[in-house]
């Protein structure tokens, strides 16, 4: 189904007025694609019927939010990013008595387990709390369980090695019936919670904030709001890490931050 610009704005308004989900700051081209994709998946014959369902069925809204947001993720996505974390950030964190890390837009949690493995191998996990948040409760349920398809492990163990993994990746999980479960030792230091970057406030002070492949879906204004939120939530000399195509450069905050040497999208707060 093709959704026209005006129709898209109707859906955005419906979701906000009726259910309190504010997608008005999302980049329109991808939002439009997501709605069109959903209408196609669920085989709506017309826009009117699609909209009617959204307006009348509060249960369906859960599915809408799940499908409108892009939840694609993997363990050790962009392995070189994790190499940079190991080389440039972990040694600094090691000097702190206690470490708080916020993973915003963590999706189904692969990123949180990757981070936990990194910290574990640096012997820092025991003194760290990982706050893993997302707008989407369904993906957080998956994250909490730490159960993923076994078929993905070949790719993940390659990523793990490319990310400077020091151990035997298969020791971090147990496999059963086509699925793997990551060791509870890794999730013991994680706190999962819904948090909406559009509307929710800061909830703690962190030494590291990682928010990857979330801001590409936001327009400039919303990106700026989120940068302020992160700035308010980050300790001085803390680190912000973004996805490989995202930048703090144009945020009006760049003079408060210094990009790290590695060439990865990691900044340190210097004032």
């Amino acid at each position, binding site marked *: 189904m093709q959704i026209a610009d005006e129709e898209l704005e109707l859906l955005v308004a419906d979701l906000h007025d009726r259910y309190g989900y504010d997608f008005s700051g999302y980049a329109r081209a991808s939002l439009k694609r997501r709605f069109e994709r959903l209408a196609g998946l669920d085989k709506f014959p017309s826009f009117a019927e699609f909209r009617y369902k959204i307006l009348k069925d509060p249960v369906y809204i859960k599915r809408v939010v799940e499908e409108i947001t892009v939840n694609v993720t993997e363990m050790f996505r962009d392995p070189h990013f994790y190499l940079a974390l190991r080389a440039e950030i972990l040694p600094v964190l090691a000097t702190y008595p206690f470490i708080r890390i916020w993973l915003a837009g963590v999706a189904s949690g692969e990123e949180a387990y990757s981070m936990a493995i990194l910290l574990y191998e640096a012997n820092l996990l025991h003194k760290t709390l990982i706050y893993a948040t997302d707008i989407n409760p369904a993906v957080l349920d998956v994250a909490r369980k730490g159960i993923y398809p076994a078929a993905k492990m070949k790719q993940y163990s390659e990523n793990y090695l490319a990310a400077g993994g020091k151990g035997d990746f298969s020791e971090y999980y147990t496999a059963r019936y086509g699925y793997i479960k990551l060791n509870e030792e890794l999730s013991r230091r994680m706190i999962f919670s819904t948090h909406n970057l559009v509307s929710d406030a800061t909830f703690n002070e962190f030494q590291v904030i990682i928010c990857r492949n979330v801001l*590409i879906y936001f327009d*400039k204004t919303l990106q700026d709001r989120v940068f302020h939120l992160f700035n308010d939530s980050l300790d001085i000399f803390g680190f912000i890490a973004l996805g490989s195509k*995202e930048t703090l450069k144009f945020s009006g905050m760049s003079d408060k931050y210094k990009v790290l040497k590695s060439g990865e999208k990691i900044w340190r707060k210097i004032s």
Partner: protein
Amino acid sequence: MAEDLIGPGYQCVVIGGSAGSIKVLIDALPAITPHLRLAIVVVLHRKNAADNSLLVHLLRSKTLMLVKEIEEKEPICSGICYIAPPDYHVLVEKDRTFSLDASEKVNFSRPSIDVTFESAAVVYGASLACVLLSGANSDGAHGLIMAGAHNALIAIQDPATAEMPAMPRSAMNVVENYHILQPEQLAGFINNLA
């Protein structure tokens, strides 16, 4: 259709290709006028990031035009040759900026040519030209249908000249109005657009 029927007035050309398309592009680039008043957007299937920066360097060596990998929310300017980054779909916003999207692969591809053809067509309409080159799958065909529906100009590489004819061929099977392009006509075709 003859090349001279294409008047100027196009603002953007999206070039999609897969296996066998790089050589066509590299051969054409030196003959493309560097200060063309149109933006060139290249969406090629790549293996990985290293592969892509190699491609950017290679293309740079062939032209005076600015050749760059697309950054998110970057304004689309004429006279620049933009390359899709690996592992992201490239979308066009109404205010003529790019946005990137790491959602599911389309036709086993990310970037997908379909996605960019369709998204650019919605914004540029009849001032868009789409070119589909050699490739081994059927990405691009659906996007060209959408582009056609928005009155974009369509050119497809002659499958007989394509190292991998499947992609141009599957597009020709479903698209209605298009120009057939010989590889050596690509530069002239683009120069005539603006």
